[in-house]
């Protein structure tokens, strides 16, 4: 099915095969295939409307794809993400996402936000509420462990001192970090970040890079990243896929992408056509 060579990805975690998403007459994603590896940061870039967020919505069960397979190589067995119910994608497969427009629980404290992320484990520990109501069955211990986990991630994003403040009162950049920490508290196998650097200042972007490296190297999970901020993408990505009009137009390391004329064309627009050297124009025509 795949006509691309993605063998550069050593330990595949997610394989997208011929994914198509149609909204009526609009084709948001057109026969897209890509592979994301474990312990790697895979970036997905492309102009506005390229279908990046639609891809995330398909991956995390918010949309049912029109066609195609989303295979996830869970240690126990390979899962087809498109067949899983919305919340099961996070619960069973461990694919957890963040959102382009931050979606924290604004009236709850940071700690509570991070505890809610551990809902499924805690729910079981509380005997589905029946035991927990009477403090039986070791719920107190489980809650303590959950708080420890939350504290670990608050330390990682440097917000431990504000743990008991309402999430909605935090500055924008801090909220972005909290959303990542909250996703990590679910215990994901793959983290999907939708524009985590949007609205961050340069120093916050740098901190984000450090955090992403730490998650990749210490947790050994796969990270899928949608981002417009090239200072982040080019520095952190192990592999980049470029989308345009729902199609994959290029893939490779940051260096390869930086110099790919097709990518440059997609970003700079069609007017550049005339200026393109003949061999690149031919190449373009061939790749369609």
């Amino acid at each position, binding site marked *: 099915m795949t006509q691309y060579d993605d063998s550069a990805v050593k330990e595949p975690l997610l394989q997208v095969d011929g994914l198509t998403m149609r909204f009526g007459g609009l084709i948001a994603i057109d026969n897209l295939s890509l592979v994301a590896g474990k312990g790697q940061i895979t970036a997905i870039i492309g102009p506005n409307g390229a279908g990046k967020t639609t891809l995330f919505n398909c991956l995390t069960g918010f949309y049912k794809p029109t066609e195609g397979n989303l295979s996830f190589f869970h240690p126990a067995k390979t899962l087809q993400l498109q067949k899983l119910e919305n919340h099961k994608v996070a619960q069973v497969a461990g694919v957890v996402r963040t*959102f382009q427009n931050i979606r924290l629980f604004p009236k709850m*404290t940071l700690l509570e936000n991070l505890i809610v992320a551990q*809902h499924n484990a805690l729910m079981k520990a509380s005997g589905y*509420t029946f035991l927990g109501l009477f403090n039986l069955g070791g719920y107190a211990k489980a809650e303590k462990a959950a708080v420890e986990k939350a504290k670990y991630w608050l330390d990682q994003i440097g917000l431990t001192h504000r*743990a008991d403040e309402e999430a909605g009162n935090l500055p924008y950049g801090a909220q972005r970090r909290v959303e990542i920490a909250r996703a990590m508290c679910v215990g994901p196998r793959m983290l999907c970040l939708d524009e985590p650097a949007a609205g961050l200042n340069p120093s916050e972007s740098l901190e984000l890079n450090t955090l992403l490296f730490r998650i990749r190297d210490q947790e050994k999970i796969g990270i899928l990243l949608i981002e417009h901020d090239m200072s982040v993408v080019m520095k952190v990505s192990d592999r980049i896929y470029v989308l345009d009009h729902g199609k994959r137009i290029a893939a490779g390391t940051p260096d390869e992408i930086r110099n790919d004329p097709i990518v440059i064309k997609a970003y700079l627009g069609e007017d550049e056509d005339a200026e393109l050297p003949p061999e690149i124009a031919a190449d373009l025509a061939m790749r369609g």
Partner: protein
Amino acid sequence: MTQGAMGMAARPAIDYAALLKDAALAAFVVFFLAFPLIGLQTYDQGGALAVRGRWDLLAYAVIIGFVGRFLFQLAMLFKPVKSTKEPSDASLARQRQIGMIIRYALLGIALTMPFLPFSDRSWLDRGINVLIYVMLGWGLNIVVGLAGLLDLGYVAFYAVGAYSYALLSLNFGLNFWVCLPLAGLFAALFGVLLGAPTLRLRGDYLAIVTLGFGEIIRVVLLNWGSLSGGPNGIASIPRMDFFGLFPFGNREGAFHTVFGIEYERTHQIIFTYFVILALALMTNWMVNRLRKLPLGRAWEALREDEIACKSLGMNPTNTKLSAFAIGAMLGGFAGSFFAAKQGFINPESFTFMESATILAIVVLGGMGSQMGVVFAAIFLVLLPEVTRDFEQSRMLLFGAAMILIMVWRPKGVISHREPTLRLNPVKGA
């Protein structure tokens, strides 16, 4: 110190001209409204209708409008600027202390109420009424305050509980204490029945469906004569006895002979009072406990952002249904208590007005706040009683009081939300 200085600087100079202009505008609006309503009066003049002006009254109304608006605007200018800073540990600890004192004081009053010198039958009845609404408020608070699902048909579960007890006790001779959990169970079942088809709805749309649900239950009760007795309702429902052991009443083997005390009619009412107090306290304990459990946090998270909940692997269906079921169960308990206390029920007791009152208690009290519900219930149940002397303007006073509360505290009497757990405990608490 700097904060104080900034506060002074931030206060703008009073622009009297603008205030007067605003007041004049208000006076004009009053004039426009009052001219036909107050200024003109029709009277009977030899069989024909004639009109006369009441210009003095009109003038008073306009003056009141002018001065009132002026003073109101002036007062708004001097309203303390609300700081967006987190409250300090010291002030938080003090707030908590005051909260604790009020809580224990109210509990003390509630426990000793029946033995206070002034408490006669009517005061006990009022106490029972307040407690029923407190319990209903706490139950609805789960659905509206915590889970954020606007439910305008809560009275349906109250009705299910009441009719469950009435029918079970009359048809199968079951005791109140057996029926109570059963009634709760039935109500919870209806909660799921309402919850299941409305899972995708939120806000206004959910409100409309729940409103319809409440009406459906009432209309069914009204028309299914063979089951519910229709508009005549169900009469001579057995009163509650002493935990299924012995009844109340002036006969051998009843409560007073067992305890060897003089027979008094108030014994049963006092017992009834303590039953509803215990039920209400149980509800309070349960809701407080649930808030600190994953389920309760999931409800609050669902209120804040359902999409984020799904992305974290939470099953929103189960979470919502459990909120509906547990809220309904508590309403069912209150309903079966109501039937046992009244001895007579008919669909008239379960109109939309009841749902609205319970919702008003939750909203006035402050969504999600337990103490707020108590204050609002006392206020909403007792105010109509107290103002009984002003027969004609009673509802007017009631409405004005509600508007004033919402102006003064738009988020309810108590809008502070206490976190369900803290990383750093408040110092000095």
